[in-house]
């Protein structure tokens, strides 16, 4: 398997930031009460991680080791603020619903972690693939969770009534404990997918490139 594919799959499944590394959970559990929020948060997060990894990887030779963390934070914070401003201007309702969780992308461990562990050492194309993998890995878990939670907890998807009117919504799913339960189901789903990948005839996609 080519290294670029391996890098991409790394974030998507093998080391899914939410389901395997289990970082950035606070905002993930908090916003998944509705599908619109889940999609909004994933898009914002994916944009910030791709843009940050791109810039940091492109400038990696100009960033001195001793001040790298402040520089990473400046770059991540700048992109997060841009997303926040654009959302406020063009999607005011969504921005209102997400509240403080958009500005909090700055301190999301997924971005800090990938920038420090990957983008600051790797060439631009791989950094972008890694960011896309991580961003989409985050997206599918987040959107999946929000679909389950909104459907069972409210009987709707994207605010549209899907289940019959007689359906009594199971409030538990939009409350925090339901979030944890649904999250646990997605952890097992991801592990199942990971196991399938590892046992597939293609062989184990080794992100280290067969070292």
């Amino acid at each position, binding site marked *: 398997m080519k290294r670029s594919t391996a890098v991409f799959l790394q974030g998507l499944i093998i080391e899914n930031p939410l389901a395997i590394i289990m970082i950035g959970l606070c905002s993930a559990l908090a916003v998944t*009460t509705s599908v619109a929020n889940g999609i909004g948060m994933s898009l914002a997060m994916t944009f910030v991680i791709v843009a940050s990894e791109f810039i940091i990887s492109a*400038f990696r030779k*100009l*960033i*001195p080791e*001793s*001040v790298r963390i*402040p*520089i990473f934070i*400046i*770059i991540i*914070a*700048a992109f997060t*603020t*841009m997303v926040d*401003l*654009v959302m*406020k*201007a*063009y999607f*005011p309702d969504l921005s*209102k619903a997400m*509240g403080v969780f958009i500005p909090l992308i700055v301190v999301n461990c997924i971005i800090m972690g990938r920038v420090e562990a990957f983008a600051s050492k790797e060439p631009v194309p791989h950094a972008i693939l890694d960011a896309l993998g991580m961003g989409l890995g985050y997206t599918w878990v987040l959107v999946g969770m929000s679909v389950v939670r909104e459907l069972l*907890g*409210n009987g709707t998807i994207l605010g549209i009534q899907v289940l019959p009117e007689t359906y009594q*919504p199971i*409030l538990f799913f*939009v*409350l925090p404990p339901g979030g944890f339960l649904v999250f646990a189901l997605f952890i097992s789903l991801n592990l199942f997918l990971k196991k399938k990948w590892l046992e597939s005839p293609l062989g184990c996609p080794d992100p280290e490139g067969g070292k």
Partner: protein
Amino acid sequence: MIKSMFRLGIILSLFASGACVALAVVYNITGPVIKTQEERALNAALKDIFPESDGYSDITKELSSPDPKIQILNAYAMTKGGSLLGVAVKASGPSYSANAVLLSGIKVDGTIKQVRVLQISDTPGLGANAANPGYYVDKAKKITFTGQFEGKKITDPFKVKEDVQAITASTITSRSLTAIVKVSADAASTYISQKGGAK
């Protein structure tokens, strides 16, 4: 040592200024859009509370909250053809999980016109039902939590479970929101009695 400090400082400031320039560009593009969005939202909210009004003036500075925990964010005197119809008060106060923001309309005759929940972050399905137009505290009459304030006299006691119906299993939310409405109404009535008395 000193030399490397300068070098690092300069590099850091270069990155910071780059980020600042990029942010300034985005801010200049989105700033005016955000402002018109906010104005449109405010106009729509005020129009929603006092549909018959044709103008308003900002009187935020003339109102003060009698309760230190509840803040009056904005207040507008709603007028029609120059005469005062009532006061719209946007106030924020602590609720179950975080601050809630309500917009209340108070008529010159001392009754509440309408109450709208602008922001609430309480438990979905429980406290957050305060903002749900399909949740009725009085199922028979189809009256929502905020709907029950319509036409209420501001001299009423505003006691939850006495003259105010609570949201099921959300007494704290119900109490906090009622307190915000009460404070808004009191502040507005002080203003109205000053202005209305002079007429």
